């Protein structure tokens, strides 16, 4: 600690010329929530590739796939049973001579429909339930939480089975089963965020400016919860897709002649010794779908919530 002692004389001090515009110039363009997240997501190559593949699968399932083929996914033709993959039937044909290419995309459509349904329920029922519960608090919260605690204990497999027993197996029954339990986790997460955020200063500020409860939730609390909401959404989707395929695999879901990736895999598994292509094509599409949603979910979690990055 050998510091030289110096007397401080006034002439040592002077004013530095500050260019008032300098501060303005250096600050880059404002980066909002979305942009900020997008920049982080762009760095994650796996997530970006997944997004691209998902868009491609989407296009194949709804537009390109059916357009490229003149066959119907349901038309049976016993003269062309078990035709291997060829120029005419790209994915081959099944036991009843149905074209697998169109069947696989029909199954993918079912999976994507389920994905959207689950996302929709999560966003509307789950978010609303959680927001009401967390924001109102008190007795309402108490009652709503008790209901959640009961719902959480019910395995959704059991719900699906009971729904199947009452209604007929099919896409509507699966939708009902997902509708009963699918949104519970979202409700819990949103409620947690609400409890946390409503005590913060910006909420108080908005309150004191006269904002109504509804406005406060919609304009301030929910936008501030977007990160966790999107992250949770991205994990709900693959599990809903899986649930549908699983139910169809064990015979509780989509019924023949309709196709689902789960039921196609189930049929293919029985033919694995002699016609393995019947298993490979739907399996590859299904796994691709799952991997991409999972990777995109991981990427979005890192992008929206850097603190949770592991």
């Amino acid at each position, binding site marked *: 600690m050998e510091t030289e002692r110096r007397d401080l004389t006034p002439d040592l001090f002077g004013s530095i010329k500050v260019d008032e515009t300098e501060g303005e110039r250096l600050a880059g363009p404002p980066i909002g929530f979305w942009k900020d997240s997008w920049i982080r997501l762009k760095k994650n190559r796996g997530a970006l590739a997944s997004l691209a593949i998902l868009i491609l699968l989407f296009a194949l399932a709804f537009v390109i796939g059916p357009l490229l083929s003149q066959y119907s996914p349901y038309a049976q033709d016993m003269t062309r049973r078990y035709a291997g993959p060829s120029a005419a039937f790209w994915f081959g044909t099944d036991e009843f001579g149905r074209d697998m290419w169109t069947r696989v995309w029909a199954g993918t459509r079912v999976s994507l429909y389920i994905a959207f349904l689950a996302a929709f329920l999560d966003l509307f029922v789950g978010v609303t339930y959680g927001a009401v519960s967390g924001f109102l608090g008190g007795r309402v919260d108490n009652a709503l939480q008790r209901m959640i*605690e009961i719902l959480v204990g019910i*395995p959704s497999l059991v719900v699906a089975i009971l729904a199947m027993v009452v209604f007929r197996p099919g896409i509507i029954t699966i939708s009902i089963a997902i509708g009963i339990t699918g949104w519970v986790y979202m409700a819990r997460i949103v409620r947690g965020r609400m409890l946390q955020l409503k005590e913060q200063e910006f909420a108080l500020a908005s309150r004191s400016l006269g904002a109504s409860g509804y406005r406060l939730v919609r304009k301030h609390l929910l936008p501030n919860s977007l990160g966790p909401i999107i992250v949770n959404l991205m994990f709900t989707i693959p*599990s809903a897709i899986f649930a549908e395929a699983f139910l169809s*695999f064990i015979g509780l879901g989509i019924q023949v002649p309709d196709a689902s990736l789960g039921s196609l895999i189930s049929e293919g598994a029985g033919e*694995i010794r002699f016609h393995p292509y019947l298993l490979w094509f739907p*399996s590859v599409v299904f796994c691709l779908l799952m991997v991409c949603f*999972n990777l995109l979910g991981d990427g979005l979690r890192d992008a929206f919530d850097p603190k949770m990055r592991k």
Partner: protein
Amino acid sequence: MIRYVLRRVVYMLITLFVIISVTFFISKLLPGTPFADDKLTPQTRAQLFEKYGLDEPIYVQYAKYMINVAQGDLGNSFYFESRPVTQMILERAPVSAFVGIQAVIFGLVVGMVLGIVSALRHNSWWDTLAVVIAVLGVSVPTFVLGPILQYVFGVKLGLFPIAFFESWWHSVLPSLALSVFVISTVARFVRSEMLEVLGQDYITLAKAKGLTGLAVIIRHVMRNALIPLVTVLAPLTIYLITGSLVVEQIFAVPGIGEQFVQSIFVNDYAMILGTSVFFSVFFVIALLLQDISYGIIDPRIRIAGGSATVAASAGDSRGDGGDGDGGGGGQT
């Protein structure tokens, strides 16, 4: 703590009560009666109704049903005439339990080794391998994996029998198919927990005070990183139930899952509803154990009053929802 446990037990009972009530009313809603046989005279039918208590008012039937279920009597199978459902489930339980427990033990060991090594060698090829396995393991479902294992190990390599259940060798492939998901869930969880703990100040302190690398890892890192593993208990239970349905079906293992899928095909409603109740009890107990053990480990959960469940619906057993951040776990 006792208050917390009691609270959880009460919720467990309410949940079970709701599920069992629903199964009762569903069984009443079903079209037809077990005796909708035209050959029966009205007189015989009345006798049968009397014998099985079907002539009594619905609330009496309901009360009787609830009492029976509470005593473990789930009624008789429709398909295998008059065989008690409970007995049929219990007969098959050991097989399912064996395959499942074997899968969990194997999955836990491999998953923990993979997770620990990949965290310690962060960003090495080991780490990449573990991450790839983790993503594939949660994305490739058992019903794709099962046939592939059958094809590769059974048909092509001829190493293991591909179906039925006659010796220990027969249990290898089903357990392997079940364990892949366990491996990836555990590896993923352990890896992220380890990485978080490794970055903590107390690890730096432990190293600074001169502990060897191994002592730090065993006494400080693993201890703190492995305890939260109890949160995967409920998701794993759910997974084992759904997984057993698929795996037992594919490998023709005579367990509960296979019987359940068969009962769906033959519309054996008593069996379907009874097995549903059985699965629910199984799951609710797992959930309770998880919440209690988590409450002991992390007192913040108890205060917040939440359930430690992270991800527990049928397919939703990734076990990575909100874990890792203990505080958040309490609120979500």
